[in-house]
């Protein structure tokens, strides 16, 4: 890849890594109708960035910690209040995003570009980020090798899964943890506002091609990879922002497959 500028190589590798991590998390998000949950975690990531800057700690770490806190908060509030979960998610998503923006604006001494957190800044990817992406990718792979069937059973019916001896709560918690890691890492690539699209759109498009859960996962991986490559190329050629270009590439694929009837 000597013909490519180094920043583009880093961007491409990072984007592909995130696409590969997003696919297995995304299909379950679609199957379990949890896309708004993912969006809420992603929105709250900006608050994680603000707090990280505020306390001067590593941003990935603060984003992951805050995502987990928000996930726990959703769980607790859902039990305590009468509000439906989509109302709760809406409140949490936007209040944490607003708080994040306010906290950021109060830190006058810090030179930060809010736009790069909201919509990504793929050119800022470093070799360290790539290492982190590879590590999370490996953890995701191991998790799915071990719990693929368990996750499917939980998706079908939580109670049935639990009676059948699956550690439902532990596995769901691990899934959310992976989601938080993925969101933290993909912030540089597509930004907090667009992270969910990377999870949802390739999976939704893959439904049109799949007849089994694992073929849907397979096509989701492929379509995610194609979207990243297409988006990066478009961004390079037409000089448009990379994150939105990747999301639009995925959307384009989704639209092209929309007219195709699902195999079953």
């Amino acid at each position: 890849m000597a013909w490519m500028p180094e920043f583009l190589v880093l961007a491409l590798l990072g984007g592909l890594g995130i696409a590969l991590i997003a696919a297995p998390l995304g299909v379950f998000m679609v199957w379990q109708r949890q896309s708004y949950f993912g969006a809420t975690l992603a929105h709250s990531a900006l608050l994680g960035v603000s707090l990280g800057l505020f306390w001067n700690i590593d941003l990935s770490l603060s984003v992951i910690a805050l995502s987990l806190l928000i996930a726990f908060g959703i769980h607790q509030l859902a039990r305590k209040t009468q509000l439906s979960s989509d109302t709760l998610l809406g409140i949490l998503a936007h209040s944490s995003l607003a708080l994040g923006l306010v906290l950021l604006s109060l830190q006058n001494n810090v030179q930060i570009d809010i736009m790069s957190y909201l919509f990504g800044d793929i050119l800022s990817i470093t070799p360290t980020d790539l290492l982190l992406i590879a590590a999370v990718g490996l953890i995701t792979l191991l998790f799915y090798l071990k719990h693929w069937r368990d996750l499917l059973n939980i998706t079908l019916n939580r109670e049935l899964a639990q009676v059948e001896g699956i550690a439902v709560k532990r596995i769901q918690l691990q899934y959310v943890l992976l989601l938080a890691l993925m969101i933290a890492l993909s912030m540089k690539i597509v930004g907090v506002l667009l992270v969910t699209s990377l999870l949802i759109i390739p999976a939704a498009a893959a439904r049109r091609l799949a007849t089994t859960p694992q073929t849907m996962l397979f096509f989701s991986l492929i379509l995610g990879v194609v979207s990243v490559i297409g988006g990066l190329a478009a961004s390079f050629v037409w000089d448009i922002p990379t994150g939105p270009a990747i999301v639009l590439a995925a959307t384009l694929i989704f639209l092209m497959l929309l007219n195709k009837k699902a195999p079953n």
Partner: protein
Amino acid sequence: MSLLLKADRIYHSFAQTEVLHNISLQIHAGEIVTLIGPNGAGKSTLLKILLKLIEPTAGSVTQKTNLKIGYMPQKIHIDPTLPMTVEYFLDLGQPRSQSGLFFSAHHTIETHAVVEELNIGHLLKQPIQNVSGGEMQRVLLARALLRDPELLVLDEPVQGVDLQGQTELYHYINELRHRRHLGILMVSHDLHIVMKNTDQVLCLNQHLCCSGTPQSVSQTPEFIAIFGQGAEELAIYEHHHNEHTCEATHGHHNHLHTP
């Protein structure tokens, strides 16, 4: 008869409202126990407590060590975005040791027999979302049976099944407990066919109103007060039970199931 499950003085409340009051029961191998009661009687809550899905406010549930339970939930919603055949669905219910990483097309003779007996062979290649309510009940029962359970827990097993199918399904369940020596715990709110083969009927309305064989239970004033079945033909029969009277507290349920 070996004891499979024992509940001892179960109490349960949601917020300030008590939904279960002092429930004790036992289930043995080869025995059919049917839990009946009007809507809101706490049947589902009790079932969840017995399955250890929720902790009771007070009281204890003891299951036989390593008790293998086959559970058939009342209904199951599967999102249309999940591409899955009935065959795949059944395979997912199998203990992991018997299947591959993703999916094993490997069928034991037993799988074949259960599929035959429940007449779901023609559904195996169908998407799970396409099967009808009655077919889904049979698929769920097959999945529960393929785990080779000692205790079968069925939550409203004949929902969405036509009358002919109901008779067949109950007949099959009854045959199973003899053949496999299964313990069966069943929840129902309709009694016409359930009653015949049941060993023990537990009539639930927050507390156990009455319990016993179908014959004795159907003649208790408590049962008649709730279900009103053929009430006018039955002589009033005094059944020993605890301090609570069902007529006084729950007489307004009369409109349910009146003949």
